[in-house]
Structures are given as structure tokens and as C-alpha cells.
């Protein structure tokens, strides 16, 4: 039932609004609304009960192992939420003067410093609101760099075929053209193809390393050298930073600009799809272009203070990406996480994320599942392909994934990256225990056995969730995007 289905004309959560309706007759009638919007009319208990029960229909980190590849579904420490929600932080207006902002600004400055240290970059801006916006900021800075040098011919960005879809989409938004570079059979970028693609039109390359196929590109130094030699810049997509956090620094690999997904690597909440935070780090030559605002530190001792930097102090900035300073509430959560770990703890993140992934890969391989890159180490994640199971038993990876839900496991990422058929991209993260990984392996084996004995059980899965398998095709063909109170049914669009 929708909250709208609980609606009853005239019912209200009376404690939640002013006691009286103030007179607004001074507002011109022509500008006034003629009818009230059709919002649900419910009591406070109705709403609390509805959303409490609705929440129980979700899988989440707090309830389930969630090995969703490329999403780094690690434990979200509860302290991050409660401390970022201290009244003083929640009450701060984004335009509050620096006199009333030193507490928040000190946190943001520390976070900038920690991110610089852990990534090996020269400077960091926390402004981008999410990973994709960080990407956009990154390519906009690449563009600004070439433009500032009058190097206007550089209009092409190279993107490996295994890259996240946001990479090419972001490059397009920055006015670039995109050329795909193939991945070699061992999962590394095809260096030969890359060499051929480089030229005076090359603005740069966008790379994830480890890549989305779950391996560390061993040729990264060669790639960096070639791209730089061709006059291009290297962009690091930080989506997979968890794999190497504290072990390898993008700055040391030769990247000129990076973004980080704090909701992945720094454990801010995924929140059912967001919010994220996508800080960008740059080498020295790109610093002038960083998106605003940034926080700078001045003085020491009693005269110590933190100050904003905006378009006045940074005239070459690519500009503002949201109205205010990005998702500061999320940055605070990341900062709290960072302090709980310290840089020391961050180094362990990469280590144990990698340990968990390699252990799971080994156990699944030993159980007969087919790795996409059997000769490679896993990074923080790895791919298995169910090509054989699909062929032998007439089931699909999707069937397998849906059946996992019945067993109380969120499914890994399915059908991504696109270049591996019938694939599952599996990322356990460092916060899961050996027992959880072992239970997952046992379940994978059990489901494969079911695929042999009773493939229909997979094809019609899930069986134990609030709904049975949903019809995605119908959803797109018969669009129903909003409740329509008049027909007591949805608006057909």
C-alpha cells in the first residue's frame, strides 16, 4: 500500500504544523494556487507505521551481506551519522559567516589534507556532490588546462571499454568527444590500441585502476608515460579506490586529476541511492582550476582560523557545481570515518578488502565457478562468468542473482562490465567476516545444484521476498510514474 492509500480526507498530523492558518490575502489572487495539491492526508502514527514497515522491505548493509561489485557496500559506522547530526552542525546555514563556521571548516580542511595524503595529490576540492560530478569536474579541469594553454585542438578523451558509463557521459558533458580503447584478454588496457589512438587531438584518458574487471592494470606507468608524452592528461576514476587505499597512490601512478567516491571508500551512507560526495584531487598544474569552494587555513595558535576560497581568490576555477559547498553533511561523515581509521587504518582497508576478494575468488574457483580472469589476482572485487551454467541449465545470471536474494544475500552486480558475458561482479569489502564469505560460497554452490535439479526454481526466483520477480519491460512500456488520486490508479503517460 502506498502512503496515498492510507490517506483520508481531512486527517492530519496536527503537531507538525502551526496551530492556525495565517492570513495571506495580501498575496495577489492571480498568483495563488486554486486547489490544494493532492498530498496524502494521514496521522502521525499512519506515517510512522507506513515508513517503518516499508523500510523492512529493503535489503541493506545493516541487515544483509551486500557484495555489489563496484559499489563498495561496507559497514557505515553509526557514529558518523550521529556525530554529523549534532545540533550545531545541522543548524549551520550555508551562508553563515566564518565567525560561525570554524568548527565545520576545521573538519573540511582536515579532510582535504587527509585525502591529499592518502591519494598523493597536490590539492583537493570537496565541492563535487557525487562521483559523476567529480568526474565532470575532473574533465572540466582538463579542458581548462588545455584551454589556458591555448591548446584548443585537444578535443578527444580516451575511455577504456570497461569503464563506468559515467566516464564517457561526463566527457561528453565537458564538450569532448569520446574514443573507446579496448581491454586486452588479461584485463589490462590494450596498450597497442592506446598508442595508436593518441595524438594531438588527445585531451586525456579516463581510467579506473583497478579497473572494473577487478584487476590492477600493470601497465599503468607505460600508459601514463605515453599519454603525457602525447600531451594528454590522466584522469583517475576513484570508484575503485577501496582496493588500493593506502597501498598505491594515484598521484604516484602519474594521474593528474582524480575523483573519489566518499560513499564508497569512506563509508558514507548509500542511502538507497545517494547522496554521494565526489571530491577531486589534482596535481599542481591543475590546482588553479579546482571547483569552489575550498577551505584554507591561516595562522597558528590563538590567531588560527579557517577561511573560504571562492571565485575571488581562485579566478581560474571551473566554478561552482552546486549552489553551496557540496554535500557537507556527507563530507563530515567521511571525516569522522577518516579520523576513526587514521591514515594507518586506511592502509588496512585496501589490504583487507583485497584479502577478502582474493579469498572469495579462490573459494569460488575451487568450487568450480569460472573466473573471468583466472590468471589474475583479484583487486577488491572480481568477476565470475556463469556462461557455462547458463548454457548447461538454461538459466541466466539474472536468475542466479534473484535466487541469491531468497537465501538472504544481496546479489552481486550483474551484466557489468559489459564485455564479460553472464557476469557477476563481486565485491565483499573489508568489513565482512570470513564466516560471511564462507556462507556466501556455500549458497552459490547450493544454487548451482538447484540449477541442475530444478532450474525453474531459479527462473521464477525470488520466492520469499515482498514481491515476486518484477516485470521491468512492462514498467518501461506502460509508464506509471505517479499516483493519481482521481482514478485511484496511476497516471498513464
Amino acid at each position, binding site marked *: 500500500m502506498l502512503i496515498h492509500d492510507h490517506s483520508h480526507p481531512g486527517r492530519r498530523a496536527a503537531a507538525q504544523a502551526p496551530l492556525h492558518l495565517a492570513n495571506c490575502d495580501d498575496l495577489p489572487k492571480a498568483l495563488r494556487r486554486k486547489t490544494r495539491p493532492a498530498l496524502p492526508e494521514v496521522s502521525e502514527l499512519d506515517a510512522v507505521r507506513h*515508513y517503518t514497515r516499508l523500510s523492512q522491505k529493503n535489503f541493506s548493509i545493516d541487515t544483509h551481506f551486500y557484495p555489489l561489485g563496484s559499489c563498495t557496500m561496507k559497514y557505515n559506522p553509526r557514529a558518523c551519522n550521529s556525530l554529523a547530526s549534532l545540533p*550545531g552542525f545541522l543548524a549551520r546555514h550555508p551562508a553563515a559567516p566564518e565567525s560561525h563556521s570554524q568548527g565545520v571548516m576545521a573538519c573540511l580542511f582536515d579532510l582535504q589534507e587527509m585525502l591529499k595524503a592518502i591519494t598523493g595529490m597536490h590539492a583537493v576540492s570537496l565541492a563535487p556532490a557525487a562521483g559523476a560530478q567529480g568526474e565532470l569536474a575532473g574533465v572540466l579541469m582538463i579542458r581548462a588546462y588545455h584551454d589556458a594553454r591555448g591548446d584548443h585542438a585537444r578535443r578527444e578523451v580516451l575511455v577504456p571499454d570497461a569503464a563506468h558509463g559515467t566516464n*564517457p557521459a561526463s566527457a561528453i558533458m565537458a*564538450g569532448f568527444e569520446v574514443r573507446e580503447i579496448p581491454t586486452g584478454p588479461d584485463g589490462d588496457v590494450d596498450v597497442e590500441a592506446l598508442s595508436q589512438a593518441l595524438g594531438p587531438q588527445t585531451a586525456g584518458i579516463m581510467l579506473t585502476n583497478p579497473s572494473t574487471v577487478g584487476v590492477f592494470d600493470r601497465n599503468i606507468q607505460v600508459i601514463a608515460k605515453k599519454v603525457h608524452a602525447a600531451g594528454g592528461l590522466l584522469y583517475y576514476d576513484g570508484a575503485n579506490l577501496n582496493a588500493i587505499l593506502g597501498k598505491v597512490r594515484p598521484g604516484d601512478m602519474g594521474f593528474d586529476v582524480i575523483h573519489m567516491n566518499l560513499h564508497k571508500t569512506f563509508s558514507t551512507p548509500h542511502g538507497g541511492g545517494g547522496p554521494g560526495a565526489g571530491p577531486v584531487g589534482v596535481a599542481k598544474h591543475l590546482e588553479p582550476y579546482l571547483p569552489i569552494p575550498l577551505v584554507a587555513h591561516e595562522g597558528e595558535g590563538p590567531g588560527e582560523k579557517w577561511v573560504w576560497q571562492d571565485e575571488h581568490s581562485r579566478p581560474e576555477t571551473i566554478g561552482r557545481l552546486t549552489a553551496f559547498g557540496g554535500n557537507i553533511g556527507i563530507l563530515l561523515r567521511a571525516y569522522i570515518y577518516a579520523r576513526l581509521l587514521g591514515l594507518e587504518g586506511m592502509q588496512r582497508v585496501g589490504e583487507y578488502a583485497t584479502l577478502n576478494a582474493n579469498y572469495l575468488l579462490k573459494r569460488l574457483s575451487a568450487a568450480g565457478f569460472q573466473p573471468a580472469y583466472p590468471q589474475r589476482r583479484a583487486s577488491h572485487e572480481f568477476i565470475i562468468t556463469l556462461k557455462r551454467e547458463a548454457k548447461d541449465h538454461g538459466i541466466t545470471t539474472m536468475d542466479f542473482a534473484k535466487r541469491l536474494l531468497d537465501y538472504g544475500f544481496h*546479489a552481486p552486480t550483474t551484466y557489468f562490465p559489459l564485455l564479460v558475458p553472464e557476469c557477476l561482479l563481486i565485491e565483499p569489502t573489508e568489513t565482512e567476516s570470513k564466516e560471511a564469505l564462507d556462507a556466501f560460497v556455500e549458497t552459490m554452490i547450493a544454487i548451482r545444484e538447484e540449477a541442475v535439479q530444478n532450474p525453474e526454481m531459479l527462473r521464477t526466483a525470488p520466492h520469499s521476498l515482498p514481491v515476486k520477480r518484477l516485470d521491468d519491460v512492462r*514498467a518501461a512500456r506502460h509508464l506509471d*510514474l505517479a499516483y493519481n488520486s482521481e482514478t485511484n490508479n496511476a497516471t498513464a503517460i
Partner: protein
Amino acid sequence: MPFIPHTPEDTSEMLATIGAASIEELFDEIPPELRAGDISGLAQSLMRPEPEMAVARLMQERARADGEPLCFLGAGAYEHHIPAAVWQLATRGEFYSAYTPYQAEASQGTLQVLYEFQSMMTALTGLDASNASLYDGASALAEAALMAVRANRKVKDKRVLMPASVHPFYRQTVRSIVRHQGIELVEVPYDPTGGHTTISALEQAAAGKPFAALVIPQPNVFGVLEEVDSLTDWAHQHNALVIGLVNPVALALLSPPGEWGTQSEKSGGADIACGEGQPLGMPLASGGPYLGFLCCTQALVRQLPGRIAGKTLDLDGNPGYTLTLQAREQHIRRSKATSNICTNQGLLVTAATIHLSLLGAEGLERVAAACHANTRALIARLCEIPGIEPVFDRPVFHEQLLRLPRPTEDILKALAAENILAGFNLGRSYPELDGSLLVCATETRTESDIDRFRDALGRALS
């Protein structure tokens, strides 16, 4: 090891299974010269793990440092009452720690919330469809402009008329995001008396050339109400799409974008509405995370960027919810996507949906009316002080630009010293408005708050 459950025995067993001698060995494909050695150069306190107890103490001290001042600042972020239930529910682990609902059957909580949110936003804006949120109001406006340019079949010119009465931070954001996509943003000056956008200013800005879209802020950055009906009709007469940039609380009182313009015309109503969802249950929280919303007519739905939840049926024919129209999105379309956007503001959508459920239409109207009435009272009290008067003469919703008899920065500082945030200095963005102050009173401001402001301002000016 905070948040890492491995005991030494676990690690040994796992390495034995893998056949590696050490964790270090797992990184053996990485060129040794790339392996980070000691990371140093930072204060020791940033190097070491700190127990939760110590971090809590630090954060409590820093939160207290920012003083929880009495706030008359608006300018795009508004202090509203948020029912306690909103965040107690939204931060339940099942909402807080779930991801994008890629596995729909295991994510009906999130998906149904998205669908309910979309339903509420279409009800508020009077449009047919809504996405499941964007980053914030300013980036939503950028996406709206891109969408309008893509969608306008009659006008191929990538020009968008952007009134100067749109919040300057919003205009900066739009510029940052769209500047390299061949879009021209044409600034339309505001009327110096009314603070609104006039047809003649539009005519002049358009200069007879076609344009794809007109942005109409309601209320605008000065708090002033625009003549949305005539502006909408004018734009439609020029075959342009209309983008309403609206405050969702104000919509409880004001005509919804879907009804702007002469309704008898077949093109009545704005085509797109967007804005900042922060007033719907998000704390001020330094400016984010907030929530951008984006709604449109039926005709434009396939140009909507961002995630969209749809209702469908399951194998048994029972209703359920799923992400839909994914063919628009970057993870499918890659470089051909409607936008690079991936993440939405799911947690904030959850909060906004619960918030709107708790208020309902009548509650939201009471909130909006109280904002307006309190702002009227505030203006009346402040204008008792000699030398203070409204800059513009047209009706406002819950903000008003006042002229001050002394430099704005001096006043702001004096009041900040009394723990009062007096307002926003628009003079930084509009040189011609130097010496003015944008003030705001929401439903959270009491008579005694207003008196305290007036008295402090009186002292500062005496």
C-alpha cells in the same frame, strides 16, 4: 582494527586458502615502485586511529563552536521545522545503508519511497512526471536547461533566457555545468523598481532571435513574486519551453508551474519545474546534502535525466516498483545518455517523502502561510528603524530585500557578534544592490526572535 573483523587466525587461514604468504603478496601485480611507503607529513592525530569516544569529543567541540545562531538568512536555504519522526525513520538502517535499488525485489522499501516522492512532487508542481531527485536545486536547474534544449523540437537554437533574478549561485552552477555544451545563457535584467522580470526586458534580451527555453524563478532571489502567467504565455508564443524554478513550500500557496499561463491555450503550463527540495525536511547543514527535484510534462518524460521509479507487476500480477526508463541513463547509453548523473539523493528523498506525509497539503499551507506572515511582521518591525525600507515594491513570499543606512558588512558583523545572522548580502553579486540586505523569516521565527533582531539592529545602527 576499526571495522575490520579479521582476527590473526582468520587472516592466516584465508591466506593459506589463497596460497599466499602474506597480504602484501596479494599486491604482487602492482609494480613495486608504485607501492606507497610511509605516508607522512600529516599531524600525528590524523595518522593514528582514534576511538569513537575521542572523535565524538572532537566533533562535539567543533559543533558547539559554530554557535547555533538565531537565523534570518534565507537565500536558497531555509530553516523550517522538521518533524522528529522524519530523520528517526530516514536513518533506519534499512534506508540508510541500502544502495541504489538495482535488485528491485530486495529494494521495495526504497523504490516505493521514490514512487511516492514522484507522486508528491507531481502533485505540488502540477506536472505529469518527476524524477527521483538530482543533487540540489542549482544542478537541477542546469539539467533542466540541458533537457529543455534537447527537447525543444521547434527551436534548435541552444539559447536559454536566464533572468538576473535567478539566484547568482544557481546561475554560476548552470554556467559551470553547461558552458561546454554549446549552450548560450542570455541574462535578462530585472526591473529596478519591482525586482521582477518584465516582458519588455525579455523582448530586449531575446533580441528577436529564437531561444529554446525561459527560466522563471518563483519566488525569485529577491523574494519577489514573478508574473508567471504572462511570462509563460510569452515564452510559449515564442515556441520556447518554460522552466519553472520554484520553492516547494511556496507552492502550497502559489500557483503550480503546471498551471502557469493561460490555461485555454493548448500550451498552458510550464513544461519543466525544478528547484531545491531542502525546505521539505532537510536541515540547513551547511548547504548539503539537499535534494534537487525535476518535473516535466508527459511529452518530455523521455528527456528527464536521473533515476525514475515506475510501478509494474510481479509474476503473480501483484504491484511492485522498479527503476525504469534506464535506457536514458549513462550505465546503458554511456556517451549518449541524457546526463552523466548516476547517484541521486535517495536518503533525502526518503526524508522529504516522510516530511510531506506528515504535513499533508494543509500542514504545508500552514507552514507557507506562517512564513509569509512572519516575514511581513519582520519587515514591518525592521522598517520602523529610520533608514530601513524595502528595495522593491512588489509582493514577496518569505524574503525581502531591505535597504540599509550603513554598510551591509558592518551590520552583519555587529549582529553576528550578538549571535544573530541578519541576512544575505546580495551586494556581493549585484554591485547595484550594494547597501542592501536580504532577510527571511520562516515559520520557526517567533515574535520575540523578531524583536531581538530589531533591537540588535537598532543598536547596531545607533
